[in-house]
C-alpha cells in the first residue's frame, strides 16, 4: 500500500485538466497505487505521472485543452513567444550537433556528480532522524579538558538526573554483545543495555507487547528483554504470542516482554535485543564506583522551549559542582552535550562536506566551460543576431531567446545528469567506508531530483547570461557592416579568456585537494604499524555465561583452542589477544608504578592493557627490544609478569632499564596485584594507523584469561582460505561457540583508512575531469584566437617573423591566462586548505611540495593545450593568409 510522492502529485495537479476530469484521473492513480506492492510502486507511479504530465501538460500549456476554450483566448502572449523560443532553440541546437553533444556531456558530468554527492549529503547529514521531534534529542557523555571523550559513570548519571531541569528525561545505555544459546546455531547478538525510560526518551512504542518502565532500573528487576522486529521475524517466526517466551542470553534466561517496530535503529546501528540496566547493577557493584566509566552513554529529550545552549550550560554547571563534591574521582571531568543527529554523523561529516565543496567546484567548472562554448557560439552567430536585430528583433527578445536556449540545453543536461548521478551514487555507496551511518537511507529521491532540476536551471541562467548580454550588446548596423570573416569582437575574446582564468583557478583548487589526499594515502600506507599485517587472519569468540566464570577452566580451554588451530593445514602460528592492533583497545586503565612518586589522581597515566598468549609476539611479527616475552613459565600460579611497549618504557623510566620494575593496574589503593616488567616490545599502532600509539601493557593470557579473545592466525597461503578450517577446529571443541568478526589484518588496515581512500578516489576523479575540461577549454580559446589572427600572423610572417616567434606569440597568450588562473587558484586553495585539514595525515594542508607539483602539472597540461594551435599558427602560409582577405 502506498501513495504518490508529493512531487508527483504536485506535478499532476498542475498538468491534468482542471475540475472533475483531472480529479478522476488522479483518483484512479491513487486507488491503483493503494493496491500495488510498495517496492515497485514508486517507479510505476513516476512512469504514469510522466506519461500523464507529458500528454496533458503540453495541451494545457498550449491551451489546447478543448474543454477550456476560454483559456485559449486568454492565453498570454508571453507563453506563446516562450513556446516559439523553445522550438527555435531546439532547432538551432539540433543544427549544431557537436556543440550540443559537448555541452550536454559536460553538463551531465557536472550535474550528475553533484546530484550524487548531494544525495549522500542529503541522506546522511540533512534528513532528520526517524524519531518524533528529533531536534530535541541530545547525546551526553563525559569529557576531559584535553578533549578526550569518556563514557558516563553511573553515579554521575544518577546525580545528573536528579539535578537537571532542561530535559524531559535522561536515559543511559551501552552496547553489549550477547551470546544466544539454547538454539540450533548459537549466535552473537548485538545488544544494548538500557535504562527503563530509553524508548520513552526516543519516542518509540512497542509494536507487540510493552517496553521497559522505571521498575527495570531497580536491581531486583526480573530478567526481561525487548527484541527487534528483525530478530522477531527471523528467530521467533513473527509470532505475536511470543510475549513471555524465554531466550537464553549469556547463559541467563530472559523473558521477552516486547517487540520493537520494524526498522528501529539507534545511532545508525541495528540491535537485536535490549535488556534492562537494573539487572546488571545488581551483579556488578563496581558500577557504583564514581571513578568507573563503563561504556554507558546518555541521551536526553529537551523540554519544549529549552535550547541546546541552555541545556549545555546547565549540564556544565552540574558537572562543575560534581567536581567540587567528588574531587577524588571527578577532577577535570566535565559533561558534553551534542545533538544526537550530529553525534551519529560526527565522523563522516567532514568527508561529506569536503566532497560537497569539491563537487561544487566541478559544477562551476562545467558551467564556466559551457559558458565559454556559448560565448564562442554567440560570437560565431553574431551575424545572424545582428540581422535579426536589424530586422527589428527587440533586445529583450534576443536575450530571452538566448537564455531559453541555454536553459533548454541545461535542463536536458540535467536530465542526463540524473542518469549519470544515479550510476555514480551506486558507485559511491559501494566504495563508502564500512560503518558509514545511514548509508541505506541514501537514495536518489525527490529532493535530489529537485536539486538536479534547480542546479540545471540556475546553471542555464548563469552561463546563459554572459553570452546573452555579450551578443545583445552589438548594434545591428555595426555588426552588419563587418564581414563574417572578421569574426567576433575583441570583447568576446576578452570575456572568454576571463572565463578561462576562472576555470583554471577552480581546477587548481581541485587538483590541490586531490594532491593532498594522494599524499595522505601514501603516508597512511607507508606507516609502520609495528607488526607484519600480511597473512594474518583474525576472528573473535566469546566465553560468556556461568559455566565460563572459572578462570582455570577458561585458561585451559584457550590453550586447547590454540593447539587445535595450530594443527589446521596452512596455519603456521596462532595466538590469542584480548584486543587487536588497529581495532582499538578493549581495556584502558590507569596504573601506578612502584619506584616513582604517585601523581595526583587526575594526572595518573593510562595504558591499554592487553592479555595475550605467549605465542602472540611471534605470530604478529613484533620485535623484542629488551628482556623476554611470555613463555611457558608464566602460569596462573607463577609471579605476575607483564611486557610493556617502548613508549611506556621511555615515558616512565627514561634512561633506566625497565626490566624488573613493578607496575599495578588501577588506583593507588586498588587491591590489584603488583606485576613485574619482564620485557619491552616495539610500539604497535592500536587505534587505526593515524592515532599516536598509546602506552601499552601486555599481560600473559595464562594469568588473565580473556572471556572474549581474538584469535590471530598466521598462514602460509591466503589467510581467508583457512577460515572454515579454523571454525571447524574450534567447533570440534565446543559446538556452542559462535565465531564472529573474521577479517584479515590487511582488510582491517585498509578499512581503517577507508574514509581517506574514498575522499581520494572522488577528488582524483573530479580533479581529472576538471583538468580535462580546463585543457579542452583553453585549447578552444587559443585555437579560436589563432583562427581570428590568421591574417595578422600572415602579415608578421611576410615581414620576416620566424616560426619560433609565432609559436611564442601564441603560447605566451595562453600562458598568461593560465598563470593568472594558477595564481588565483593557489590563493583560493590556500584559503580553503584549512577545511580539509581534518582528513589529512602526515602532510600539512598547505604542503608546499603538493601545491608546487599541482601547479607545475596544470601548467604542463595547459602548455600542451596551447602548443597544438600554436603549431598550426606557425605553419600558416603567409601568401594563403593574405590572399584570403
Amino acid at each position: 500500500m502506498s501513495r504518490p510522492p508529493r512531487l508527483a502529485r504536485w506535478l499532476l495537479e498542475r498538468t491534468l485538466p482542471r475540475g472533475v476530469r483531472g480529479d478522476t484521473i488522479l483518483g484512479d492513480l491513487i486507488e491503483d497505487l493503494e493496491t500495488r506492492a510498495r517496492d515497485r510502486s514508486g517507479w510505476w507511479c513516476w512512469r504514469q505521472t510522466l506519461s500523464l504530465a507529458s500528454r496533458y501538460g503540453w495541451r494545457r500549456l498550449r491551451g489546447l485543452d478543448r474543454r477550456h476554450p476560454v483559456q485559449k483566448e486568454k492565453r498570454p502572449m508571453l507563453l506563446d513567444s516562450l513556446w516559439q523560443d523553445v522550438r527555435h532553440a531546439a532547432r538551432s541546437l539540433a543544427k549544431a550537433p557537436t556543440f550540443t553533444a559537448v555541452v550536454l556531456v559536460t553538463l551531465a558530468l557536472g550535474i550528475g556528480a553533484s546530484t550524487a554527492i548531494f544525495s549522500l549529503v542529503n541522506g546522511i547529514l540533512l534528513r532528520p532522524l526517524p524519531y518524533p521531534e528529533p531536534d530535541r534529542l541530545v547525546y551526553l557523555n563525559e569529557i576531559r579538558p584535553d578533549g578526550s571523550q569518556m563514557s558516563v559513570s553511573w553515579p554521575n548519571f544518577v546525580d545528573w538526573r536528579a539535578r537537571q531541569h532542561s530535559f524531559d528525561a535522561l536515559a543511559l545505555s551501552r552496547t553489549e554483545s550477547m551470546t544466544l544459546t539454547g538454539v540450533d546455531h548459537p549466535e552473537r547478538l548485538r545488544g544494548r543495555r538500557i535504562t527503563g525510560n530509553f524508548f520513552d526518551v526516543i519516542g518509540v512504542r512497542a509494536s507487540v507487547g510493552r517496553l521497559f518502565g522505571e521498575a527495570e532500573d531497580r536491581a531486583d528487576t526480573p530478567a526481561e528483554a525487548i527484541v527487534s522486529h528483525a530478530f522477531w521475524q527471523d528467530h521467533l517466526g513473527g509470532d505475536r504470542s511470543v510475549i513471555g517466551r524465554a531466550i537464553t542470553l549469556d547463559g541467563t534466561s530472559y523473558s521477552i516482554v516486547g517487540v520493537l517496530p520494524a526498522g528501529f535503529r539507534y545511532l545508525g546501528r541495528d540491535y537485536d535485543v535490549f535488556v534492562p540496566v537494573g539487572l546488571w547493577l545488581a551483579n556488578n557493584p563496581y558500577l557504583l564506583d564514581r571513578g568507573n566509566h563503563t561504556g554507558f552513554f546518555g541521551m536526553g529529550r529537551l523540554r519544549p522551549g529549552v535550547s541546546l545552549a541552555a541545556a549545555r550550560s546547565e549540564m556544565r554547571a552540574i558537572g562543575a559542582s560534581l567536581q567540587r563534591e567528588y574531587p577524588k574521582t571527578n577532577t577535570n571531568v566535565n559533561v558534553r552535550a551534542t545533538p544526537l543527529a550530529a553525534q551519529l554523523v560526527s565522523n563522516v561529516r567532514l568527508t561529506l562536506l569536503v566532497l560537497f565543496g569539491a563537487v561544487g567546484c566541478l559544477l562551476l567548472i562545467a558551467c564556466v566551460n559551457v559558458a565559454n562554448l556559448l560565448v564562442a557560439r554567440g560570437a560565431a552567430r553574431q551575424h545572424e543576431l545582428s540581422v535579426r536585430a536589424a530586422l527589428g528583433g527587440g533586445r529583450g527578445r534576443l536575450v530571452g531567446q538566448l537564455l531559453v536556449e541555454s536553459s533548454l540545453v541545461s535542463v536536458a543536461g540535467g536530465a542526463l545528469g540524473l542518469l549519470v548521478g544515479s550510476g555514480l551514487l551506486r558507485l559511491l555507496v559501494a566504495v563508502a567506508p564500512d560503518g558509514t551511518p545511514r548509508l541505506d537511507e541514501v537514495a536518489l529521491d525527490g529532493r535530489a531530483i529537485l536539486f538536479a532540476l534547480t542546479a540545471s536551471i540556475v546553471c542555464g541562467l548563469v552561463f546563459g547570461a554572459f553570452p546573452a548580454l555579450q551578443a545583445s550588446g552589438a548594434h545591428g548596423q555595426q555588426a552588419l557592416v563587418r564581414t563574417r570573416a572578421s569574426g567576433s569582437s575583441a570583447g568576446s575574446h576578452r570575456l572568454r579568456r576571463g572565463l578561462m582564468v576562472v576555470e583554471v583557478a577552480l581546477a587548481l583548487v581541485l587538483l590541490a585537494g586531490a594532491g593532498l589526499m594522494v599524499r595522505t594515502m601514501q603516508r597512511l600506507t607507508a606507516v609502520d604499524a609495528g607488526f607484519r599485517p600480511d597473512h594474518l587472519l583474525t576472528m573473535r569468540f566469546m566465553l560468556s555465561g556461568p559455566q565460563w566464570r572459572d578462570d582455570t577452566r577458561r585458561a585451559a580451554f584457550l590453550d586447547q583452542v590454540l593447539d587445535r588451530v595450530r594443527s589446521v593445514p596452512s596455519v603456521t602460528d596462532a595466538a590469542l589477544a584480548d584486543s587487536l592492533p588497529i581495532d582499538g583497545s578493549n581495556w584502558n586503565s590507569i596504573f601506578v608504578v612502584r619506584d616513582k612518586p604517585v601523581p595526583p589522581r587526575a594526572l595518573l597515566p593510562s595504558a591499554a592493557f592487553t592479555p595475550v598468549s605467549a605465542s602472540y609476539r611471534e605470530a604478529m611479527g613484533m620485535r623484542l627490544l629488551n628482556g623476554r616475552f611470555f613463555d611457558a613459565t608464566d602460569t596462573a600460579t607463577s609471579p605476575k609478569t607483564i611486557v610493556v611497549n617502548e613508549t611506556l618504557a621511555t615515558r616512565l623510566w627514561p634512561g633506566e632499564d625497565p626490566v624488573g620494575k613493578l607496575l599495578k593496574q588501577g588506583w593507588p589503593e586498588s587491591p590489584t596485584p603488583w606485576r613485574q616488567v619482564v620485557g619491552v616490545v616495539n610500539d604497535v599502532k592500536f587505534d587505526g594507523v593515524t592515532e599516536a600509539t598509546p602506552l601499552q601493557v601486555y599481560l600473559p593470557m595464562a594469568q588473565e584469561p580473556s572471556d572474549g579473545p581474538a584469535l590471530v592466525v598466521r598462514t602460509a597461503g591466503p589467510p581467508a582460505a583457512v577460515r572454515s578450517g579454523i571454525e571447524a577446529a574450534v567447533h570440534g571443541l565446543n559446538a556452542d561457540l559462535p565465531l564472529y568478526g573474521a577479517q584479515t589484518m590487511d582488510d582491517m588496515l585498509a578499512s581503517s583508512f577507508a574514509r581517506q581512500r574514498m575522499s581520494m578516489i572522488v577528488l582524483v576523479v573530479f580533479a581529472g575531469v576538471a583538468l580535462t575540461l580546463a585543457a579542452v577549454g583553453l585549447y578552444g580559446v587559443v585555437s579560436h584566437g589563432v583562427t581570428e589572427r590568421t591574417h595578422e600572423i600572415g602579415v608578421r610572417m611576410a615581414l620576416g617573423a620566424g616560426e619560433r616567434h609565432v609559436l611564442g606569440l601564441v603560447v605566451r597568450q595562453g600562458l598568461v591566462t593560465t598563470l593568472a588562473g594558477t595564481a588565483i587558484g593557489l590563493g583560493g586553495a590556500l584559503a580553503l586548505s584549512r577545511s580539509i585539514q581534518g582528513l589529512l595525515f602526515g602532510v600539512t594542508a598547505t604542503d608546499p611540495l603538493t601545491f608546487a607539483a599541482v601547479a607545475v602539472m596544470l601548467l604542463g597540461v595547459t602548455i600542451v593545450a596551447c602548443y597544438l594551435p600554436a603549431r598550426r599558427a606557425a605553419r600558416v602560409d603567409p601568401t594563403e593568409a593574405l590572399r584570403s582577405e
Partner: protein
Amino acid sequence: MAATPLGEFEHQLLLVVLRLGAGAGGLEIARELETRADRRVSRGALYTTLDRLEDKGLVRWTVAPGSPARQGLPRRVYSVTPHGVAALRTSRETLRRLWRGLEGILKEPTS
C-alpha cells in the same frame, strides 16, 4: 453520423468498456486490458484515447462519488454510446468481409 474508422487501441477500448458494463472506471479498464488483451498501457495514453473517443461521440461518462481508497476523489464511469456500438458493428462487418475466403490460408473457420 457516418461510421468513423477505429484505430486498434480505440477498438480494444470500446470492447473493454462494453464488456465491463456499469463498472467501467478508468482503473477497471486498465486492468481488463491487462488481463484480457495482455496489453500494458500507460495512463497518459489511456485517458487521452478515452478523451478522443468522447470527442468522436463513441463513449460518454458519468461521475460517481469517490471512496476513501481514492482519498474521496470522484470516479468517472464510461459507457459506449449508440454511435459507439454502431462503429463497432461496422468495424466488425468490414473485418468479416476482409477475412472471408482466407479460411484455407489461415486454417481457421470464420463466422
